[in-house]
């Protein structure tokens, strides 16, 4: 197992020019929870510096401090050796620091042109030509007078990138810029980044895609639990080094989740039966999930799997076709009805659909089963008992019963959402990207939970974009491509073949 490197300061030599930007001993505390604990690092001119870290490690907070959106609780920001204070992002912009955010900040009701040019100093017309050239190079092909709200996420992201480039920043921060870009767009972006760094601009690049990090960056820093655990030149690192650095201290490395046990005897009645379901993003989908089995639904971002799940759940009412839950037909569906019939759904976007951030985590857990906690009055004791039961079973770290969900780590939040689903004692549970954005330990806990559920005879439908995960977990694999779902025969359930199916290429199961 490779050693974890201590944080080093490569430019400690006297006589070397001060780095372009540096943070020294920066602390940031939110709501009495320390997120950054005295971090120090720097960015040299012309360098592409990658920042890696799991959810909750403090990546976003770090860059927000750099670009002026937050003020540090303690510590110093230096630009070319001079200490700086940023009261607001425009202060940072004026000093030449710009962040391209992970989720595009778009003014949905304004035109694309306005979105690109707003906030620029001076006469905007002077930027017009440069703007159009950049748009062409990056592949933003839409008409500039369309409403920005109508664009795809990828196009909106391009708007943000162009904004950064138009501001001639000397320090550019990219926060997960490639998650929704195509290969061509990523290549173009990397080309631009290399050109900018050749001009002496320092680039700070947050990503979770290790291959990209290894491809484009000069140096890598790994953040874990609010401190930097590794800073080294990329050339000296391998994927394994990075993986090891991001893993929480003390947890044993696991190369693969436990092999899924397929139950020998299976009940003849499927616990979920979907027949000819058709909606906006899928057509004539039919499949079964039997009690005690794990069915994996593979596919790419945008293939329509979440839309399918939400249609089964009844969130989207405009679908045709039939769904039967635990043997009972469900012509009219809503989350409430489906829950009563025995279907539970753990959403892909836990912040938007899964968890009540501004309430104690306990209240998220009990939200689905309030009807069982006493009529007409809720029994606080029963609620506490149920919550305690699931907190223990799933290993949720709650420092107090009244701790707000917002202050929980990503992994704990996901567990709370899982607990909510499980509390309703479902016969079939749909997990939509259950391990996205959570630390490795929580991930193992989720895999273990899935195994326990199948042992109890619960059917599990797992939607995931990580092929290795799906193959390891599932008894059967379905692939969704262009709105159609097909099963991959057991004989072809290897990663390369499933991969092909997911992309709709010949040799895959999807027709």
């Amino acid at each position: 197992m490779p050693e974890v490197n201590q944080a080093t300061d490569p430019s400690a030599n006297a006589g070397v020019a001060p780095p372009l930007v540096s943070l020294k001993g920066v602390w940031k505390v939110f709501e009495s929870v320390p997120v950054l604990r005295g971090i120090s690092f720097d960015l040299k001119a012309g360098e592409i510096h990658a920042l890696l870290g799991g959810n909750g490690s403090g990546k976003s907070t770090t860059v927000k401090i750099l670009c002026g959106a937050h003020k540090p609780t303690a510590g110093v920001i230096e630009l070319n050796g001079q200490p700086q204070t940023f009261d607001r992002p425009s202060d940072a912009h004026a000093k030449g620091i710009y962040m391209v955010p992970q989720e595009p900040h778009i003014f949905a009701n304004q035109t694309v042109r306005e979105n690109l040019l707003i906030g620029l100093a001076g006469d905007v017309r002077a930027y017009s030509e440069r703007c159009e050239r950049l748009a062409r190079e990056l592949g933003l092909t839409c008409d500039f007078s369309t409403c920005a709200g109508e664009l795809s996420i990828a196009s909106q992201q391009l708007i943000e990138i162009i904004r950064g480039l138009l501001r001639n920043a000397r320090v550019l921060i990219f926060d997960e810029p490639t998650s929704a870009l195509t290969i061509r767009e990523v290549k173009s972006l990397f080309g631009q980044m290399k050109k900018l760094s050749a001009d002496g601009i320092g680039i700070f690049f947050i990503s979770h895609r290790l291959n990209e990090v290894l491809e484009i960056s000069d140096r890598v820093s790994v953040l874990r639990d609010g401190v930097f655990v590794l800073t080294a030149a990329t050339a000296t690192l391998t994927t394994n080094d990075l993986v090891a650095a991001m893993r929480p201290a003390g947890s044993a490395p696991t190369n693969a989740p436990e092999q899924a046990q397929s139950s020998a005897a299976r009940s003849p009645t499927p616990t979920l039966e979907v027949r000819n379901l058709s909606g906006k993003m899928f057509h004539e989908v039919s499949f079964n999930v039997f009690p005690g089995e794990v069915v994996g639904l593979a596919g790419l971002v945008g293939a329509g799997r979440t839309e399918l799940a939400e249609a089964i759940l009844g969130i989207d009412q405009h679908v045709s076709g039939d769904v039967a839950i635990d043997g009972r037909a469900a012509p009219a569906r809503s989350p409430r009805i489906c829950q009563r019939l025995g279907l539970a759904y753990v959403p892909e976007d836990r912040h938007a659909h899964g968890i009540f951030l501004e309430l104690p985590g306990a209240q998220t857990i009990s939200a689905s089963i309030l009807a069982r906690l006493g009529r007409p009055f809720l029994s606080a004791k029963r609620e506490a008992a149920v919550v305690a039961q699931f907190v223990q079973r799933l290993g949720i770290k709650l420092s107090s019963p009244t701790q707000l969900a917002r202050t929980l780590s990503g992994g704990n939040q996901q567990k709370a959402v899982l607990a909510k689903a499980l509390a309703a004692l479902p016969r079939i549970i749909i997990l939509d990207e259950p391990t996205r954005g959570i630390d490795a330990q929580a991930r193992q806990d989720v895999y273990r939970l899935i195994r326990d559920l199948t042992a109890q005879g619960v059917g599990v439908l797992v939607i995931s974009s990580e092929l290795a995960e799906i193959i390891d977990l599932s008894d059967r694999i379905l692939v969704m491509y262009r709105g159609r779902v097909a099963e991959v025969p057991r004989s072809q359930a290897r990663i390369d073949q499933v991969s092909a199916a997911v992309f709709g290429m010949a040799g895959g199961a999807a027709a």
Partner: protein
Amino acid sequence: MNRIVRNRELLVLAILGVLIVVIGAISPNFLRPATLINIVNSSLFLLLIAIGEMFVILTRGIDVSTGAMAGLAAVILGVSLNAGVPLPVAIVLTLLTGLAAGTVNAVGVTAFRVPPIIMTLGSLGVYRGLMLLITGGSWIETIPHSIKSVAAFRVAGVPALIWISLAIAVGVAFALKNLKQARYLYAVGDNEEGAFLLGIPVKATIFSAYCLSGLFAGAAAVVFVAQIGFVPMQTGSGQELKAIAAVVLGGVSLSGGTGNSMSAVVGALFLTAVDSMMIFLKVPGFWNNAVGGAILLAVVVIDYRIRCTVRDQQQRARAKEMDQSTFEKNSAAARSASVMGKAT
């Protein structure tokens, strides 16, 4: 979205046109130019308040004190004229009163972060109370002729106040489209956090919106006193709610980011016209509110249905676009997936 807003104003104007024709058929007196000009004339008070309200709503805020601000400014105007202050100075004082009142709201909302509905509800009470305090509870009955003559002054047969107000509206529309700082209003209402991160002076923008609301309330007060000739106690009472109804009717979304001064104009004209129509139809006055309320509800519900349909269509279009680009995205994800391993 812009398309719908533009259409909304035309739509409302079209409905208004149809209504006018219909009423005219029933009661031909309605179509006399004098009547129509009268309608426009009576809508000026609401119109100016509505434009002021629009600035605030563009930033996704709300101001329910505009009527009270107008009332307070009207009282100041009456009192100063009666005290012998020359007309131009008195008008400036009135405008300044409105501006000051709006500034109080602005400070509360930006510096103290009081939610706009609370702040303006509170200042509503305060301003109305001030009105009563200054006048001692009685109407200001006698106003020097100087101000009333302003209302009487006509250019090309149409009262000068109408020309001035419309000029103001057009000027505001132009500024909103072209002035950089005015565009900030839309940005802040559309996505406040995004605006902040882009370096747009969010607090200053919101501050000026509330100040402008007060300023226009002051202007409305000038028009009111000129037209009515005295200052009754209830001046401005309920106007803020009508102003909100007017701008929403005309296409300004309460969630900010869309609309412009012509929305306010169209909305104010519509509501005033409906009032007049009821008079012509000899419908007892108290039905005005019922009809106004019903129209507002109908418009916003229909707007909701339209937006749902549009969103549906956009989703279908995006689904198709996803379809096309899926293949390219695949390759990128595939390569990452096999190299990435478990550590994400």
